[in-house]
């Protein structure tokens, strides 16, 4: 019993640390991009996540188009109708558990919505929004 508890605790801590570690990396990058960097901003993250733009496919989309309004719920891919598991790490423990996966999707999804990759500041802002929503 104690062992299971310890294991669960370990898992929670280790998954939390993946996103924390990634945010630390982004902080370092953001300071290089902008010497007066003053931390990540949830409000800006919300704007990045919810605002619509003419994306790569020439259609008006936002992050919400695929991930939905409620990040604790399953949503549908705007282009393919395939189900997407909840983006919120509180609802879906698989989220933010591997830096390679986070980076892959941020690169792709910024390109899909903004037609360019996100800056370290933008990526940090939007992650801060997602994990706290």
């Amino acid at each position: 019993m104690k062992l299971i508890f310890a294991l669960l605790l370990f898992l929670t801590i280790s998954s939390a640390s993946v996103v924390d570690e990634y945010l630390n990396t982004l902080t370092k990058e953001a300071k290089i991009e902008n010497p007066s960097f003053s931390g990540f901003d949830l409000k800006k993250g919300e704007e990045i996540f919810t605002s619509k733009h003419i994306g790569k496919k020439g259609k008006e989309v936002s992050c919400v188009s695929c991930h939905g309004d409620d990040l604790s719920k399953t949503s549908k891919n705007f282009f393919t109708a395939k189900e997407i598991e909840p983006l919120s790490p509180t609802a879906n423990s698989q989220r933010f558990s591997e830096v390679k996966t986070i980076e892959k999707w941020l690169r792709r999804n910024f390109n899909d919505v903004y037609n360019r990759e996100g800056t370290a500041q933008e990526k940090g802002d939007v992650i801060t929004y997602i994990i706290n929503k």
Partner: protein
Amino acid sequence: MKLLILLAALASVVLASSYDKKGVAVATDKLYIKECGACHFAYQPGLLPANAWQKMMSNLENHFGSDASLAKEDFDSISKYLNKNSAEKFMNYKRSARIVNSLRVGEVADSISKTPYMIEKHKKIREDLITQEEVKGIFNCTACHTTAQKGIYSEKDIMIPNFGRWED
């Protein structure tokens, strides 16, 4: 006797050119299923010849208007898998053979649904049933073919959303 040999030879030729397997070989590679099944159903490699897969893989940054780019090591592994299991290597499967045989010599297909065999098979479906929200396009095989995951595309296993079973 000579006639018998001739008959036997003929029979083996006929057998060799007929598919001993229906459908298309199922996709088995875990990485492929995870990566190429993230935005849509993981199409069986036997649905396109190697040259078409190569063309598609060479432009993942702009994959049908979406960014589907991969890390180098995953790209290499998936390219290899597709190349090893492409349609022309599995001509004993009925659907792979039909798709390959429908292409003109030298033609490199841009997608599965735009191959002549697929166009022919789907031309009788009402346009609004294809473009509806639940389907979006012919690319979405699993929306109508209930056994697509198993590589089976038989008519009896078709169920179109807001329409029902397909009876020819």
